[in-house]
């Protein structure tokens, strides 16, 4: 299996690097765990959304009288129930959202901007009645021309989604509105100078299709709004504090009056960082005076929740004959969907981040199209731009006959490299992942006839941010750990390990809970690969806070100065012989004595975590291409990534494997298919095909540990980087197999077959 970490990168540790069974594990294998849709409340209604059948239409009027007259219908809401909000940008995941847009995204106002855009919602006694009611709502639409493609949307005569959209980031500001919301630019050095130094310059244009995060659990929530203006909300989300903020804003509530509890979350990958149903359910509950449960169908998930941006990316790279990259330039055009805010900025920032370059220029366009508003998807923006760059780097290596890993090593970003997006890297592990790749048996294994091998590297920043954690010491010396970041893939295990390490107690004595929004201070969401890092840091700080209290209490018991007490292996001891002769006081001893010595022990931390270490990875893939059907089969796959320190190596491996397989889907199959009216034709898992078990081989992993110096145990985020390299690695492997480079994703059987047939025809001619 995978090479694994011993977790000792930062010195001897007892718990970091071990693999205990996760604390929520038994609930998850017995069906006991409660996900978004698994809760029923007394007197509960069912809410359903009426969605626009048109990609772009002005809403002239909505008549809900017939629906309201249907027995069992309690209330209907439309745009008239939400107050309009002015433009105000707030963080959501790694991206910003504008409240003016959020209120329009959850319920269309002037226009329906994509097929599936909510235009009304019903609360009724049953789903059946709610569905019947939806059919009785009469919406008068004026259908408008629509635009789906990013290049078409940038044309001067394109249909406008927002008639007042003036491009930001351009001097002087344009006088006419367009679908280009924003232009961003990152520069380092002078690319003209860099290209002048090059012996070889390659420029290519790439395209990627929107792909969905594809979490198996659809969006779901229950809102319970009380007559006194307070409300509770249960929902599946990556960040219940963010949901609270958005809902309170849209409902005109104080945040203190809205208590949000995060259910177990059945996958998110960035797609559950924004609100869809939650404000609607709260409004339905407010108007009906009853709890309202809402759950999206899979079709609604596809039609109306956020995909990753479809893109056009142009890349130009210059290199000397010796393999030194002299300049990199790129232009990125990203679909934002119906509202501004594609991840084009991180796409620009990541594009050349794996390379130590003197001359870089990247320009990005955030472009509106009549599709659902994009949402974050695992390293949002990076896979698309790095796919393009890593494909061109592979072509450059081939051009001079240099091994592609060697070429990357020659140009790799390392400690001290100034990235084009601003910072100078501290210790980073790209070189180590490349060295591991070069040395890996996979890289030297013989290929069968007709197969090809590809490699690619990838980068993602990772983030920190506002985070709280609490450790409550029980009277028997066991600990309740309360964190505010929903556990999407085993983070409770990793937080318990970090707390156990800090306190020096058995990890089994620590039980975790994801607290609701009233139990902790504001905590930013699970995203940006920040949870093991930032919530981990908060847990360590809370542990230190508790140790300080425990040492003070031992000093009191022994009647010695507190600085004569030390904490080691889970107990207070006199610090050296001068402190006096006392038997150690364990956590359990001190817990038992709490009432007599000064009261309960609660370790707290409220931090703004800084210094998230970026993570680099390198992937190796072997493919086989069926020349008769165009099907690309993944024969072998190895992921090598820097984890800083792998706290629970099994869940680090799981992140690397899962990210790689999502990337395989992105590369080979996944895409949205629209008809000429702008209606999605494949809103289900049958026709939108994510990788299934028989599509993929075992995914080998190698965890590299270059500790992040800003985290007490060296942790860096690991969750997002693994989706970055697969598309280029697979395209490079297909090129190796066929001698044909695919620059448009997905490399699905019809496309590959067409390319093979075109080549046969060209050869015959």
């Amino acid at each position, binding site marked *: 299996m995978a090479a694994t970490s011993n977790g000792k990168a930062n010195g001897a540790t007892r718990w970091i690097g071990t693999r205990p069974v996760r604390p929520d594990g*038994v609930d998850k294998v017995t069906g006991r765990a409660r996900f978004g849709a*698994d809760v029923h409340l007394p007197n509960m209604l069912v809410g359903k959304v009426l969605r626009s059948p048109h990609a772009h239409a002005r809403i002239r009027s909505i008549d809900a009288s017939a629906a309201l007259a249907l027995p069992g219908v309690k209330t209907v809401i439309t745009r008239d129930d939400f107050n309009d909000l002015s433009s105000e940008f707030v963080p959501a995941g790694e991206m910003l959202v504008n409240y003016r847009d959020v209120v329009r995204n959850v319920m269309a106002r002037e226009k329906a901007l994509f097929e599936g855009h909510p235009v009304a919602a019903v609360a009724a006694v049953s789903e059946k009645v709610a569905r019947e009611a939806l059919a009785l709502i009469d919406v008068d639409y004026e259908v408008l021309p629509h635009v789906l493609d990013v290049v078409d949307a940038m044309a001067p005569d394109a249909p406008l989604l927002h008639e007042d959209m003036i491009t930001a980031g351009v001097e002087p500001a344009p006088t006419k509105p367009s679908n280009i919301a924003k232009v961003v630019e990152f520069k380092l050095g002078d690319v003209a100078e860099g290209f002048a130094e090059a012996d070889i310059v390659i420029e290519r244009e790439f395209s990627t299709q929107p792909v969905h995060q594809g979490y198996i659990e659809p969006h779901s929530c229950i809102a319970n709004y009380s007559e006194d203006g307070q409300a509770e909300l249960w929902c599946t989300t990556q960040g219940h504090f963010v949901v609270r903020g958005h809902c309170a804003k849209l409902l005109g509530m104080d945040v203190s009056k809205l208590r949000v509890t995060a259910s177990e979350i*059945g996958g998110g990958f960035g797609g559950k960082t924004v609100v869809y149903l939650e404000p609607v359910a709260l409004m339905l509950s407010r108007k009906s005076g009853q709890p309202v449960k809402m759950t999206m169908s899979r079709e609604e998930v596809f039609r109306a929740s956020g995909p990753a941006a479809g893109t056009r990316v142009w890349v130009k790279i210059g290199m000397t004959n010796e393999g030194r990259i002299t300049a990199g330039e790129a232009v990125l055009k990203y679909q934002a969907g119906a509202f501004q805010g594609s991840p084009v900025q991180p796409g620009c920032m990541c594009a050349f981040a794996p390379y130590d370059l003197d001359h870089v220029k990247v320009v990005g366009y955030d472009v509106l199209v009549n599709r659902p508003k994009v949402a974050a998807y695992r390293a949002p923006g990076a896979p698309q731009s790095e796919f393009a760059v890593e494909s061109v780097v592979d072509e450059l290596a081939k051009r001079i006959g240099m091994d592609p890993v060697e070429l990357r090593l020659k140009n790799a970003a390392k400690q001290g490299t100034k990235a084009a997006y601003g910072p100078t890297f501290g210790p980073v592990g790209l070189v180590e992942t490349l060295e591991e790749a070069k040395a890996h048996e996979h890289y030297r294994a013989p290929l069968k006839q007709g197969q090809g091998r590809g490699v690619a590297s990838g980068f993602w920043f990772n983030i920190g941010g506002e985070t709280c954690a609490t450790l409550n010491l029980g009277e028997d010396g066991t600990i309740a750990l309360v964190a505010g970041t929903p556990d999407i893939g085993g983070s409770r295990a990793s937080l318990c390990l970090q707390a156990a390490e800090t306190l020096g107690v058995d990890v089994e004595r620590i039980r975790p809970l994801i607290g609701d929004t009233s139990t902790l201070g504001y905590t930013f969401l699970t995203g940006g690969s920040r949870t093991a890092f930032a919530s981990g840091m908060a847990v360590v700080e809370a542990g230190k806070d508790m140790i300080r209290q425990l040492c003070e209490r031992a000093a009191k018991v022994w009647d010695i100065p507190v600085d004569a007490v030390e904490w080691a292996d889970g107990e207070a001891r006199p610090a050296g012989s001068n402190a006096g002769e006392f038997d150690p006081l364990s956590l359990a001893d001190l817990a038992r004595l709490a009432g007599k010595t000064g009261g309960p022990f609660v370790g707290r931390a409220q931090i703004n975590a800084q210094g998230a270490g970026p993570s680099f990875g390198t992937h190796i893939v072997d493919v086989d291409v069926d020349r008769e059907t165009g099907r690309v089969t993944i024969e072998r796959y190895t992921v090598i990534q820097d984890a800083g320190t792998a706290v629970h190596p099994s869940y680090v491996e799981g992140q690397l494997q*899962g*990210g790689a397989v999502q990337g395989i889907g992105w590369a080979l199959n996944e895409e949205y298919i629209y008809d000429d009216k702008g209606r999605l034709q494949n809103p289900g898992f049958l026709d939108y095909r994510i990788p299934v078990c028989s599509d993929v081989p075992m995914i080998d992993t190698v965890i590299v540990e270059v500790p992040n110096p800003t985290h007490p145990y060296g942790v860096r985020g690991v969750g997002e980087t693994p989706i970055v390299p697969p598309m280029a690695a697979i395209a490079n492997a297909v090129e190796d197999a066929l001698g044909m480079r695919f620059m448009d994703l997905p490399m699905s059987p019809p496309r590959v077959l067409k390319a093979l047939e075109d080549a046969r025809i060209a050869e015959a001619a």
Partner: protein
Amino acid sequence: MAKAHVTTTVNGDPVEFLCDAEQTLLDVLRDELYLTGSKEGCGSGDCGACSVIVDDRLVCACLMLGVEAEGHSIETIEGMANGDQLHPLQTKFLEHAALQCGVCTPGILVAAKSLLERNPDPTEIEVRYWLAGNLCRCTGYDKIVRAVLDTAQEMRGG
């Protein structure tokens, strides 16, 4: 239309329920019997999160009507452990960290149990094709396949 009265067996216990003609077995399990371990990921038989065993046959509960349960025996994830003893598959899934978010896990466990009842010594390829109807978006399937193979070996006494 009046609701239908259905008599069936769920996880070995006699169960009666009333349901509408259009309610699926999954709707009945989740909304009438409050057995929410079976999940609805798609409602169209494509994701396998609602996998249950009906008279020894593996089915998607979303593709069967509640009224069709009449006279049949249904096994769900809630019946997989024996009292406080986890099924070996459940234990191995925990040991191998073969789950991340865990929402597909009940369906995959039920499907894997059905496989091992038919084929106690499956190859990796057989495991992969048997589980091809159970989508998992988190794990990339690696640890799931390893956990199933390891369970099979252990249950064979190996």
